[in-house]
């Protein structure tokens, strides 16, 4: 559906939404309400309400310790909230184990890349495909049950690897890839699982500038093909460059959300995040 949109400036369609924390979106794919997670005395996540618009790139920003990764963990079943409810495309994900969340089409990547080092790039890709008949132990002995499916998956994996510029490395161990190539592999691998929404945890962290541009280009073109993306990012240039909507968290709260332009002008964000960074003299 995204392909028919005037995708040059998709932000225009969301500018009519007021930049208020917890504001309702016109077509939310992910809706979070009263999500609460406490680690001992520390409230890591306390999100009153958050909606993520379909077919948009939403950036999640905030200083270190703001609860961004914890929120990702909660949303994807890698951690469980003390209370709260969240729905992905109308379906409640509460109490769902991580693997089941992924099967609903909500697939995440990790801040520290999790390339399966001692498996080939191609095996990394093949693993991710869903609904594999040969993944059942009782079928595993009988190659005739899954051989044809493997062939189809292999060609789909190779196509994706071509797209991400990793096709030449298909038979190399994933552990031999550079940091940036691993990030690309992780995104390509996530796509192999045929998600409807991607949660990318710092997709450009520790990646050289040339590959950062390539990763961002891929993220944009995924959006243009209809994918919804929520990503955690620290680099404000990246955030301003590609996101349609920005959500800012501090100490577990969502303190602001809006189009990128409104976020850089937001007092609360400047105080909590940009201001603090400027004061430190970083970046």
């Amino acid at each position: 559906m995204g392909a028919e949109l005037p995708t040059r400036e998709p932000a225009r369609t969301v500018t009519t939404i007021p930049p208020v924390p917890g504001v309702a979106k016109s077509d939310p794919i992910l809706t979070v309400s009263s999500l609460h997670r406490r680690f001992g005395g520390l409230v890591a996540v306390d999100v009153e309400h958050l909606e993520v618009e379909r077919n948009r790139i939403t950036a999640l920003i905030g200083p270190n310790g703001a609860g961004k990764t914890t929120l990702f963990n909660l949303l994807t079943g890698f951690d469980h909230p003390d209370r709260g409810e969240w729905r992905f495309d109308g379906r409640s994900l509460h109490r769902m184990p991580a693997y089941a969340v992924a099967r609903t089409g909500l697939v995440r990547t990790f801040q520290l890349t999790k390339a399966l080092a001692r498996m080939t790039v191609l095996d990394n890709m093949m693993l991710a495909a869903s609904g594999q008949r040969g993944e059942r132990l009782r079928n595993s002995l009988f190659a005739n049950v899954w051989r044809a499916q493997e062939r189809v998956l292999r060609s789909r994996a190779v196509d994706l690897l071509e797209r991400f510029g990793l096709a030449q490395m298909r038979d190399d161990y994933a552990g031999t890839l550079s940091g940036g190539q691993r990030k690309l592999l992780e995104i390509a691998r996530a796509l192999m699982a045929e998600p409807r929404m991607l949660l990318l945890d710092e997709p450009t962290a520790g990646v050289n500038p040339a590959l950062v541009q390539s990763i961002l280009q891929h993220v944009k073109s995924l959006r243009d093909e209809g994918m919804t993306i929520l990503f955690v990012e620290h680099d404000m240039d990246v955030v301003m460059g590609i996101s349609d909507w920005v959500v800012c968290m501090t100490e577990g709260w969502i303190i602001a959300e809006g189009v990128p332009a409104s976020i850089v002008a937001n007092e609360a964000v400047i105080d909590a995040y940009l201001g603090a960074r400027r004061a430190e003299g970083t970046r």
Partner: protein
Amino acid sequence: MDIVGVLADAMRTAVGPIAAAYAIAGIGLNLQFGYTGLLNFGHVAFMLVGAYGTAITVDDGGPLWLGILVGMGAAILLGLLFGLPTLRLRADYLAIVTIAAAEVLRIVVRGGGESSFTHGVFGIQRFANSFFDANPIPGGDYGIGRLSFTQRGLWVLAVGWSVVALTAVLVALIARSPWGRILRAIREDEDAARSLGKNTFVVKLQSLVVGGAIASLAGTLLAIDRQDVRPDTYLPIVTFAIYTMVILGGPATRLGPILGAIVYWFILQFTDSFLREAIDAGWIPTSIISADDIAPVRFALVGLGLMLLMIFRPQGMFGRREEVLIDGR
């Protein structure tokens, strides 16, 4: 010095029924540890239930084939018992539970008196007569030169190494399937596999149970060969000897556990016979190593060999060197 005799001794042990049984146990452990990365430190318990399942069933009047199945069924239950409470937790919990549970099981089996169905420390003997009655090999000795086996020994060997071949093919087939791909993904990074929609808990449980069922056959084979089960055969050191063989051969390789077992037993028996001969011949003064010291010294030599292997060939005999050199992160 009878070097031919020493080599014949070593070869006889390296291809003997004990080596075959350890190879089978190693094939099971390789599935769990080599492919899946599960730290099962109670592997010997699967052998124990295999051996006792067989012995008790026959002792109570059942046929031998049923005993083997009972042993395997008990190993499957044991795998579930080990795995269900621990495999959702961090990897270390499986290691803690298995090493403790295996000892608990041995002590419980040992604890009963002679009237208990395990017969306590006395164990159970002469339960495999039907196996030896079925021996189709004509009487006499078989072999080449000094390396020979009796009719009885050859029958155990034939069956034992057939089971080795069957289980090795079985594991090779399931490990190269998409299911096997999940095993390796779990070994590399379980969270990555979960994030891609794989139910890693179930797959780990399957790996533990299948590997355990294979190891039960190793226990059964050992018990049949000796016609004797005793609790104190199943000490924790057996588990670690099997780990040594799997690492020696190369984890997550097809032939690694088999060749690992053969080489392990060859070295152990060779050093034993060699030291004995050397002491007899007066090459080594008894003031340095007496005959009583041979048993510990040979294990020290195996340890030394393993250390050298880890330094010069960390991937084992069959592993791929590149895999070892890859930084896991």
